[in-house]
């Protein structure tokens, strides 16, 4: 996936991949400093400091990549989503609420191989009872009620949680299944939280 | 001796508004340290205040009071130049006394 992205970049926008002008340009100096000063700890290993294709393009374009490049890379990400084999995209909203509340996972203070959560309430308003919600992302309150909960919407919500960058290349939202933070079942349960007519989100 | 207190005394007429910031771990005896061991009970048991050597205030406190507590009380009949001294003692026998001179109002 990343190789394809790199080839696309080379073909369409060579200027973006031009090597840094001088050894002491701030970007190079910053990356060198990070590599030198940071240490791995717990599950947070040094590879996490190296930009992957999406991070690289977003960092170099201030999160505003050229439209053609963004669209091609979004399509690539979309093509990389592994949809559930059983074709079911909606799980249990009660479990979804717990996953949305859980902010653990992927930090150096989290154990390896232990399921984390989606940290959803850190950024979003979701259920009606939870007033301790963040405002970094848009409100998801009444999501299914206002946007519908048919197969197309289920596919969008599932895909967005799996890999948010498939829909908006430089979105601030993490790519939860792409990076292995959430499992297939966990995403299904979050889809239910947002779309199930029985979920408090849609009452 | 234990860490110093910070005493603020403000005169309003002849009423002295006193606020004392005390440095003390105030362990409840319920907390577990990083290794899982219970941290022993360690808390301020008495606080006394003296004005020019004469006792004017005494309080008995429990482990329910939080770490590095702030203690406030008002005192009538104080004037500029008076010596206000505060003493605390804890359950381990440790104590601390600090003194301030009452400033002009």
């Amino acid at each position, binding site marked *: 996936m990343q190789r394809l992205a790199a080839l696309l970049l080379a073909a369409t926008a060579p200027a973006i991949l031009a090597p840094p002008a001088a050894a*002491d340009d*701030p*970007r190079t*100096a*910053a*990356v060198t*400093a*990070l590599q*030198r*000063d*940071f*240490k*791995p700890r717990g599950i*947070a290993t*040094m590879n*996490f*400091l*190296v*930009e992957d294709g999406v*991070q690289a393009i*977003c*960092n170099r374009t*201030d999160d505003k990549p050229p439209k053609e490049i963004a669209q091609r890379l979004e399509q690539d990400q979309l093509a990389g989503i592994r949809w559930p084999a059983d074709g079911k995209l909606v799980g249990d909203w009660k479990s979804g609420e717990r996953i949305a509340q859980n902010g653990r996972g*992927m*930090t*150096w*203070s989290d154990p390896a191989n232990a399921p984390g959560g989606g940290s959803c*309430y*850190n950024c979003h308003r979701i259920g009606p009872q939870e*007033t*301790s919600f*963040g*405002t*970094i992302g848009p*409100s998801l*309150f*009444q999501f299914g*009620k*206002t946007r519908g909960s048919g197969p197309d919407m289920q596919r969008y919500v599932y895909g967005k949680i799996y890999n948010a*960058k498939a829909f908006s290349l430089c979105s*601030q939202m*993490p*790519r939860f299944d792409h*990076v292995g933070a959430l499992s297939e079942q966990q995403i299904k349960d979050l889809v239910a939280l947002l779309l199930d007519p029985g979920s408090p989100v849609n009452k | 001796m234990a*860490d*110093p207190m*910070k005493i*603020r005394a403000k005169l309003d007429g002849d009423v002295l508004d006193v*606020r004392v*910031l*005390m*440095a003390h*771990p*105030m362990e409840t005896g319920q*907390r577990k*340290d*990083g290794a899982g061991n219970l941290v022993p009970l360690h808390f301020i048991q008495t606080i006394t205040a003296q004005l020019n050597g004469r006792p004017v205030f005494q309080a008995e406190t429990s482990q329910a009071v*939080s*770490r*590095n507590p702030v203690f406030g009380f008002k005192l009538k009949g104080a004037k500029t130049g008076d010596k206000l001294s505060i003493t605390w003692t804890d359950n381990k026998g440790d104590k601390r006394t600090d003194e301030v001179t009452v400033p002009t109002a």
Partner: protein
Amino acid sequence: MTRTLALCAAAALVAAAPVPQAAGQTKPPAVERDATTEEFEKFRAVLEADNPAELFELRGAALWKTPRGPKNASLERCDLGLGPGVVKGAYVQLPRYFADTGKVMDAEQRIVHCMVTLQGFDAAALAKQPFSNETRTPDPVAITTFVAGQSRGMKIAPPQTRPQEREAYAVGREIFFYRAGGYDFSCASCHGEDGKRIRTQQLPNFTRPEEAIRSYQGWPGYRMTGGVMHTLQWRLNDCFRQQRFPEPGYVSDSLTALLTYLAVNSKGQVYKGPGIKR
């Protein structure tokens, strides 16, 4: 007259714009949020009146004057940028370039440097457990709190006259916007816009002085949770943990660059001294 009318018209247009709301939706908790924020602010004002951070300023002042370490020397000849032993006003003029080390240093980095060079303490030992917990406050934390308190009421003014200082700012800016880690977060993901919060924690926008100061001035800060004294070194460490990055080195140059960016972005704002937090 005309201006007022124009403003009224504009306001009316904005008010009339349809806000997408499903039928039967409960009123968004904007009112509750304001009341909550107000209560928090009242609470904060009471706390700030008697901040336990002052106890650590006292402790730091004693550590500054006391001869300690293998060299049995005090820190009274430590140069924080305004000359040996000058503490008043030094904190708000950091980070800055130091000729003796040939690099830009922030307050805690410089204090550790003085503890090592003047007093003979071991840098690796100081870096081993550099952050406070409920039973222990490391000496550099108390000293940094003391030094910061000596800049109380002064305007933030880190110099940007040397090329190294300007480079530190530029590198800090790159780090601030560098998206990486398992969640693709940069500092800017949370701190790059006005009016955002994570759960109920307000997130100041570090790219604007009026906003950047709201964060910068809170540190060093006494945290009520656990009753611990923390500096910016702790705050940045914990930010990178939550950003899903690996761990930055204590008083490392990457953090100094980032602190230079933050301090310069707070330039001109008044530093109120060590803060207090939930």
